[in-house]
């Protein structure tokens, strides 16, 4: 029997209250962890995604829409770019790569992106990492109706090498709008943990000339993905295309445009964080009220311990330790709550954008959240502990002479 033994026995005696309070601490801790880690990881992941390109050239529109459409493969295309504009930009001396993409069709909700095979064969989607097809596959022939399917899309659609499919018109799946053309899957991309994973890549000409598309726009493209030789080229092109021109938009630099998006929606993070903190305060209040309410029924036990020689500070410490243990258990299980929330959130993010975030990648909140919850629990235990500390002994030993 030790002080800790007394605490554990008390917690067992009030098991239901202990469990409920620990669960509320776990929920609060899990929410705080989720808000901070998902926010920061999503921020880093999205800002870090550029698919190997520095800029996007597209129809006159917002830079953010261009980046979301061309790099993240979400949002509608803001309009078309004439083939001549592509040829012009390709010859720009400040450019290393300029690769066209065309969008406008899907297969069961997964976007078809028409491009040149060079995009998949020559570009590093992350520094030092090029696209690769799984064994048994190959790159598409630009002159055939062939497709290379991103890892996540292939997984979700159950497509494998040799399968055939009919594309559907538009970016949203509508089974009434099936195109007549049949495409053959010739390759399946190895996972890149980037938006490319949820795209079905086909030859540029295939998308441009798909049946039902406007023949007059058959040479138009949706955007040009650009890799610059040096940043200064970006300044000059930004000046000439965005400030002096009025037909096209040059979205550069890609990562800063995404960072601006996160800055704009920063208020939402703050609301989420506030909700999480509020839950933490409510949970701490739960510890306080739970323990405080038991103090009345434990007055006699406390008086007995005092009569046996327990000093007031031992009684105070026992109650404080009890609240700390409740918070400790809650803090431990907050990682389970966090894992559940993260699993759901990362699945949605991956499904919607192809971006993968990792739950157990180190983040400072993995340390300060449990520590904060334990500290909060200990603080919440101070008031019941003070009540226990002040419990009069003689009056509560019940015997009357």
């Amino acid at each position: 029997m030790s002080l800790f033994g007394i605490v554990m026995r008390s917690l067992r005696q009030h098991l239901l209250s202990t469990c409920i309070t620990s669960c509320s601490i776990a929920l609060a801790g899990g929410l705080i962890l989720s808000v901070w880690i998902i926010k920061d990881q999503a921020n880093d992941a999205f800002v870090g995604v550029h698919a190997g390109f520095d800029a996007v050239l597209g129809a006159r529109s917002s830079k953010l829409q261009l980046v979301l459409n061309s790099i993240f493969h979400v949002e509608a295309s803001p309009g078309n770019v004439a083939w001549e504009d592509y040829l012009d930009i390709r010859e720009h001396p400040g450019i290393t790569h300029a690769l066209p993409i065309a969008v406008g069709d899907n297969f069961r909700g997964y976007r078809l992106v028409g491009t040149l095979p060079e995009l998949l064969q020559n570009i590093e989607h992350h520094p030092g990492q090029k696209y690769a097809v799984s064994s048994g596959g190959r790159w598409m022939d630009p002159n055939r109706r062939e497709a290379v399917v991103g890892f996540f899309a292939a997984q979700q659609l159950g497509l494998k090498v040799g399968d055939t499919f009919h594309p559907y018109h538009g970016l949203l799946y509508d089974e009434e709008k099936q195109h007549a053309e049949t495409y053959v899957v010739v390759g399946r991309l190895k996972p890149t943990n980037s938006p490319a994973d949820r795209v079905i890549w086909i030859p540029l000409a295939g998308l441009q000339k798909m049946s039902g598309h406007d023949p007059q726009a058959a040479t138009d493209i949706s955007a040009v993905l650009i890799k610059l030789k040096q940043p200064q080229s970006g300044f000059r092109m930004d000046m000439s295309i965005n400030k002096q021109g009025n037909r096209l938009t040059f979205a550069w630099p890609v990562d800063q445009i995404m960072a601006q998006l996160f800055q704009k929606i920063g208020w939402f993070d703050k609301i989420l964080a506030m909700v999480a903190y509020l839950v933490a305060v409510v949970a701490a209040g739960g510890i306080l009220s739970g323990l405080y309410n038991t103090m009345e029924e434990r007055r006699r036990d406390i008086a007995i311990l005092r009569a046996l020689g327990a000093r007031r500070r031992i009684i105070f410490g026992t109650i404080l330790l009890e609240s700390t243990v409740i918070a400790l258990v809650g803090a431990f299980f907050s990682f389970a709550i966090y894992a559940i929330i993260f699993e759901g959130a990362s699945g949605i993010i991956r499904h919607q954008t192809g971006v993968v975030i990792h739950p157990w990648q180190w983040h400072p909140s993995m340390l300060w959240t449990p520590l904060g919850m334990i500290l909060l629990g200990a603080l919440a235990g101070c008031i019941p502990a003070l009540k226990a500390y002040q419990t009069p002994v003689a009056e509560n030993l019940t015997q009357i002479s």
Partner: protein
Amino acid sequence: MALLEIKALSKHFRTPEGNLQKVLDIDSFTIDAEQQMALKGQSGSGKTTFLHLIAGIISPDSGTIQLDGHPLHALSESYRDRLRASTIGYIFQTFNLLQGFTCLENVCLGMMFGSTLDKKKAAALLGEVGLGNYLQHRPSQLSVGQQQRVAIARALANQPKLVLADEPTGNLDPDLAQDAMQLIRRLCGESGAALLLVSHDTELLGQFEHCRDLKDINTPRKENGA
């Protein structure tokens, strides 16, 4: 030398009407080491207050209490707690066992704050009071007589120099009361602890060589005042 020596001890309580009422006014009282003394006292005579003062649970308004050479009346509450944990064993009429703990744990609690915790010794004590097979039982699983025996074992667990027993047989039927009394006296005698037992049961009190009546030593006068 006296183990317990009390001089000019007084204790007041405030009545619900706001008056100060003197409940104890004891000129002199002593117990020697290993002495067994019975104190006769009716309900409301202040005997529990007297025992609480000796145990240091409450402090006197005036007077001195010397316990085992320590001036209990002058010590801080914390020091009194430590002295109680190491020097005194307390047996209550209502046993005051912790219901959430086993018999063994209850006895261990008697050691925890004053001496070294020794589970084997606690189990041996329970064996001595005839509860060797009930170590893991909760108080609620025991009869009233068995519960009192656990309380007796707990009071002796810290090898006290003085055992205070407040109506220890008040909740027991006559046969059990006799057994409990003999057990307390035997164990105190074997361990060398002095015993101060208060009761209003004249038959039990008559078994003590040293017996005093609280009304003879306590002469409180009612006082008015703020």
